[in-house]
């Protein structure tokens, strides 16, 4: 059972999502919040698997909410999916840097939305890998960021795996590419994530671009 928290300032959007999610056998909506602070409180109370967080809200916005959830050790099991009206934009990028697992455009086809929630709950893959990769590459190329620490601590294999993950490859694809077992890939990815303090695969991708391990072109 995937336990989901809805955080959106529009009651009609929440109602729509609730109707959609409740109809699934393996998804349960554990709470609804209309802004960030309330969402944070509900996350602490219910410890959901997935929090759907609207990026723009009055009060505490989605980026700050994501940052607080990602920064709370008690909430390490909560995967944040950012909801956006627009698709690719600066907010989404900031949210991914803040610790979101991925993002979904609100008017995504309901079936894709449900699939996204399932992927996020597993926490081992990127939501829409191609778009995430393009988005991050684009923003990193546009604005210079300080190179994050952590690169020196990675082993060669971990760097290799990180670079491939940043290109949007899944664990299975990386395993096939490097001719090693998926379990080994998973171990390397987890170690790399731990070393660079990435709470999610998306942060590992952000790290890969910012550290220059992967460039937007390749």
């Amino acid at each position: 059972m995937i336990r989901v928290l809805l955080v959106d300032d529009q009651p009609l959007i929440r109602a729509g999502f609730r109707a959609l999610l409740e109809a699934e056998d393996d998804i349960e909506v554990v709470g609804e919040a209309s802004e960030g602070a309330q969402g944070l409180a509900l996350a602490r109370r219910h410890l959901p698997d997935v929090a759907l967080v609207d990026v723009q809200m009055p009060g505490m916005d989605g980026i700050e909410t994501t940052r607080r959830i990602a920064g709370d050790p008690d909430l390490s099991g909560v995967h944040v999916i950012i909801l956006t009206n627009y698709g690719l934009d600066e907010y989404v990028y900031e949210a991914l840097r803040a610790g979101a697992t991925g993002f979904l455009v609100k008017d995504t086809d309901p079936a894709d939305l449900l699939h996204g929630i399932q992927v996020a709950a597993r926490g081992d893959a990127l939501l829409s890998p191609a778009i995430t990769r393009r988005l991050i590459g684009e923003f990193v190329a546009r604005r210079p960021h300080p190179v994050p620490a952590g690169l020196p601590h990675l082993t060669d294999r971990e760097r290799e795996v990180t670079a491939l993950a940043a290109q949007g490859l899944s664990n299975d694809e990386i395993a096939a590419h490097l001719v090693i077992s998926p379990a080994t890939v998973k171990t390397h990815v987890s170690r790399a994530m731990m070393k660079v303090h990435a709470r999610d695969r998306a942060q590992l991708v952000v790290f890969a671009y910012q550290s220059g391990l992967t460039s937007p072109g390749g």
Partner: protein
Amino acid sequence: MLFELRRHKTVPDVALAVALTAVQIASAASVPGTGPLSYAAIAAGCLALAVRGRAPVPVLLVTTACMLAYAVAAAPAQQAAFPVLIAVYTAARHDRRLLAAAAGAVFLSGSLAASLAGAAQPTRAIVEQTVLLLGWFLAAVIGGTVSRHRAAYLEQAEQRAAEAERTREEAARRRAGEERLRIARELHDSLTHSISVIKVQAGVAIHLARKHGEEVPEALLAIREAGADAMRELRATLEALRDATGEPPGSGLDQLDSLVDRVRSAGLPTTVTISGETRRLPAAVNRAAYRIVQEALTNVSRHAGPATAAVTISYEPQELAVRVEDDGLGSPLLSPTPGNGLIGMRERVTALGGRLQAHPRPQGGFSVHAQLPIKDLP
């Protein structure tokens, strides 16, 4: 400032030349030894002054030579020096001080030697007259130089004022653009919220109906489609507004030919060289490259005087190099003043992680060189 001098009024010059010729010929009648050749020399030396604004150096040479010939042949009093004084003044005003002084010296020493050889007057009086004339020649050279500097100063002040005006206009345009973008954003934000609700609700209702095996009402499908259309149009509108604020659409290197054509027809001969493997550029780099060429050529036509310009675009593996050079008046007097687009160019280049160098060239003229990093498009 050359523009200023080129606009020299020719009509007063013609009048001056004619009047001077008349006076000189009239006074020559009382000078002993004036022959037909002397009259011809007077006429040529004085009438040449009619074009002194357009050709100061030839006029200086002709007038000095003719009047010297007259002075040597007929031994007039000081009056033969007046046309030479005017030519000397004009040459000094056109920054030919040395030549002007040399012409003055040749005329004075030549006529002094002729007077001494003729010995019609006592030596002492001849030397006194020459010293007096020397003073007049010095005054002509100094006067010409001062006048030149004053004209240059006025020209520069005029240019500064024009630049300031242009900068103000640009600022106003930018503000208007920002305001338009702000309105667009607000509209976009509020409308997308509402349309999202429509799309989500319709999408969920359709999804649930299908899931439960019910027939999906046509109305619901229509609502979802309309929502999707509205969203698309809204996005397109915002894009259009966003483009309108910054750049006219399609200002990129593909417009280079028509830009250069315009510049050429405005009187600046311009060559374009494109080297390296041309390829599609990131939009921001493409626009920046175009703007740099545009600004640089504008500056050349404004400040360089008569010149030719060379535009070089090099596609290198890691960067796009844009170079605009001219062979005009890249002098310290006309070194780049803030506001002539260099600041804007530099900001634009820096924002893209590139470098811009702009400086007078050692061999004359001015050079703008921008290096814009290009990575392969994601």
